């Protein structure tokens, strides 16, 4: 029996909404309960999840509500949420508030330590902020893994009075939703991170470049910016909405798009840190990078660097997706192996069939077979294995996956999304798709595989940005691991 006076917490994150959270919330309200709409815990296989004073139920449908209220819904009972192994095993720094606070409540944010990072940053001043960020070892979470502190120092030393902070929220990789969860669940944290960046490098204006596929995040970010404008002043912020171009997640393409141009990639140098938005020194950081900053400011760079392994410091919000039993957001220090993440935490496939492959790092990431599952989550270890962490999304496939079709899709995706600026990507992807079609049809297989290898080398080294440069990863990893699916003999 649930006490009539207890407050029911239900997430209003897009994943919960897509699974029917509004109907569940309405059913509780109809039954006379006060319902608080909070951020998501990230246990997405249990969404819509209902939190009744720390005790969880999920996945709940509106029809189950009466049963829960009566205390009879044992089949949906999760127990104390904080003690659930999926939550208890995490090291949540960036997602410390997940599931607990109302995303747009300034009082919830303040009560849970919000703005302390910005206050401290203003006390210690720009040089000390950058010093602290360098000490933390924080690297760009968007995929490139470039040290954030070094980038900030470069921008701080850039010419002229006008500088910008740009938040890359064009999270287009399949299997990634951590940026979305930050913006929908804890938008003030991202704003605080951007305001700190502004103070550190001397920028008074920040843009969030947000993809149009995230309507809920757009609404919440706009509302949050409005609600806290007085707290971040003189720093001002604005949301700019993308228009469905994947390549705009690439930083120079994003800058062109922000300037109102076609989202074509720019050649580097000049670095955006020196000549970025409208030619001015610009910090371009991913949502997760900026969202990690308030914690680092309050707890110190060394505290952050105490997490992780090797040169991969701190925590990474890993996103478990695709055909996985326990899919959701799992924040953990670098170093956990891929096998632990997929099998122990993720519980293997949702279909119950054996895991055949996982793709890490979105559509440009390599396909990895279970025989490589001892790979630790670390930028350098992944690079050595010809794979990439990217934005830390893991897509799991069961044994029904058609690897030749997935390789072809990688080329097709690159062809559709190529900005057209450089030839290896624009033409290479289309020719690659056609060549894979011939391989799948069984024409001159050995010869065409050679052609794909050659083409991949050319795309990898000749493309201007990661779209053309990394598309060979999924293609070649599929061919190398599963040659029999391309009509080649097994090694």
């Amino acid at each position, binding site marked *: 029996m649930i006490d009539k006076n207890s407050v029911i917490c239900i997430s209003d994150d*897009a*994943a919960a*909404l*897509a*699974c029917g959270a509004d109907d569940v919330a309405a059913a509780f309200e109809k039954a006379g309960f006060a319902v608080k709409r909070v951020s998501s815990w990230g246990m*997405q*296989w249990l*969404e819509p999840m209902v939190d009744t004073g720390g005790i969880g139920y999920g996945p709940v449908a509106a029809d189950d509500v009466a049963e829960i209220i009566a205390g009879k819904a044992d089949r949906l009972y999760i127990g104390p949420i904080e003690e659930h192994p999926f939550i208890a095993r995490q090291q949540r720094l960036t997602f410390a508030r997940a599931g607990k606070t109302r995303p747009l409540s300034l009082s919830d944010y303040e009560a849970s330590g919000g703005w302390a990072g910005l206050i401290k940053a203003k006390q210690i001043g720009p040089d000390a902020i950058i010093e602290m960020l360098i000490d933390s070892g924080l690297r760009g979470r968007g995929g490139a893994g470039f040290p954030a502190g070094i980038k900030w120092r470069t921008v701080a030393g850039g010419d002229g009075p006008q500088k910008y902070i740009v938040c890359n929220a064009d*999270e*287009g*990789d*399949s*299997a*990634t*939703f951590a*940026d*979305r969860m930050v913006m929908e669940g804890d938008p003030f944290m991202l704003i605080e991170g951007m305001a700190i960046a502004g103070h550190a490098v001397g920028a008074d204006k920040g843009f969030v470049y947000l993809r*149009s*596929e*995230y*309507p*809920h995040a757009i609404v919440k970010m706009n509302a949050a910016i409005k609600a806290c404008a007085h707290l971040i002043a003189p720093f001002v912020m604005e949301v*700019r*909405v*993308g*228009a*469905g*171009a*994947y390549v705009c997640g690439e930083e120079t393409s994003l800058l062109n*798009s*922000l300037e*109102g*141009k*076609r*989202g*074509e990639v720019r050649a580097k140098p000049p670095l955006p840190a020196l000549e970025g938005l409208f030619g001015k020194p610009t910090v371009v950081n991913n949502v997760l990078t900026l969202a990690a900053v308030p914690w680092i400011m309050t707890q110190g760079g060394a505290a952050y660097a105490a997490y992780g392994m090797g040169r991969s410091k701190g925590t990474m919000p890993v*996103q*478990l*997706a*695709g*055909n*996985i039993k326990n*899919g*959701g957001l799992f924040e953990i220090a670098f170093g956990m192996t891929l096998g632990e993440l997929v099998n122990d935490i993720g519980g293997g496939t*949702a279909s119950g069939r054996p895991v055949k492959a996982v*793709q890490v790092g*979105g*559509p440009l990431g390599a396909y990895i077979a279970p025989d490589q599952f001892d790979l630790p989550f670390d930028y350098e270890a992944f690079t050595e294995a010809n794979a990439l962490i990217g934005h830390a*999304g893991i*897509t*799991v*496939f*069961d044994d029904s*996956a058609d690897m030749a079709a*997935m390789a072809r*899709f990688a080329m097709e*995706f690159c062809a559709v*999304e190529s*900005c057209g600026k450089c030839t290896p990507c624009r033409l290479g992807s289309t020719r690659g798709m056609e060549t894979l079609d011939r391989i799948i049809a069984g024409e001159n297989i050995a010869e065409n595989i050679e052609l794909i290898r050659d083409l991949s080398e050319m795309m990898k080294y000749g493309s201007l940005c990661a779209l053309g440069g990394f598309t060979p990863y999924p293609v070649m990893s599929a061919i190398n691991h599963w040659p029999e699916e391309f009509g080649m003999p097994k090694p």
Partner: protein
Amino acid sequence: MPILHDVQAEFGHISEDAIREIAGLLNLTRAEVYGVVSFYHDFRKEAEDRPALKLCRAEACKARGVEQLVGVMETAAGDRVKIEPVYCLGLCSVGPAAMVGGKVYARLTKEKAAKLVAEL
């Protein structure tokens, strides 16, 4: 870009006339504005009266069986509903996923997907 979003939200598409008008106001050539409109998947140059559904066809939704839904959805849609592919709605652990307007749907099965299309 904000101007183009507003025009499309108001009129449903960005017409030749609109491009001319925007170019004039911003002191750009029509070709420059046309170039921007044609670059982005979201901007439409022609009016579209049919209701539209965006179906995620990216890897995570593929791993969760979206390709098996495409047939029934297209049958249910016929010429009446437009089904557009989208590469990732960020609902990658609860796919297959779709979006209609600003509303999102997850864990689609053949039955749920066909019903969703039929009700548009």
